[in-house]
């Protein structure tokens, strides 16, 4: 299945892009995709289709998955 990955802040700098299409297997989760692409899944929150989700939520074809580094607002 194909999903869209969104990168922000440090991850956008690291990946040198803000968005990418990604082919992954059925049964993939935000954490498993982060490990596949980034090599780690710690420290991150995950959003799917603009909602914060659990790291082990099953992804669906067409989902937009955002890797969210630690926030620093205010």
């Amino acid at each position, binding site marked *: 299945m194909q999903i869209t990955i*969104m990168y*922000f*802040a*440090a991850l*956008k*700098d*690291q990946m040198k892009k803000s968005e990418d299409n990604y082919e992954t297997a059925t049964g993939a989760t935000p954490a498993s995709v982060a490990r596949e692409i*980034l*090599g*780690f899944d*710690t*420290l991150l929150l995950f*959003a799917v289709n*603009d*909602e*914060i989700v659990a790291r082990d939520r099953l992804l669906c074809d067409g989902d937009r998955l*955002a890797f*969210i*580094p*630690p*926030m*620093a*607002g*205010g």
Partner: protein
Amino acid sequence: MVTALPLFLQWLEGDLVLLEIISSPIDVARALAHVRNESCGAVSMFEGDIRNENNGECVVSLEYEVYAELFQKEVNKIWAEIQSRWDIHEMAVIQRVGLLQPGDAGIVICLSSAHRRDSLDGVSYAIEEFKKRVPVWKKESNGTDEKWVNWQPQGA
């Protein structure tokens, strides 16, 4: 005066909430004007400004980045929580993005209420929740090096 061109703009519930993400300087008077109402005896505001140092290091600039769609959703949730806890009339939130220098305002949150305690407590709650839950990131520069605040590079 610089005219703010919102990258993202939202009004909720009959203009009770003003929410903007902008790349130009924040017009504090505009935020205050939005929440003022004849039924309200109190307006409370938090303005988050860029400091010229952080943890003993000089800060020359900060680059703000937001995830706008999630920002909107989290602000809506925080607004609902504030309304459930305090008697708040209106809220205005203006978030700046892009490159900021010391002295610039990065965020302004204004609340109005009939009595002061509601808006004072509400604005304090709002900024604490913003810092924890609203997807905003800052890249700090000391003029030589840059780093993302709260981020340690992870090994593959």
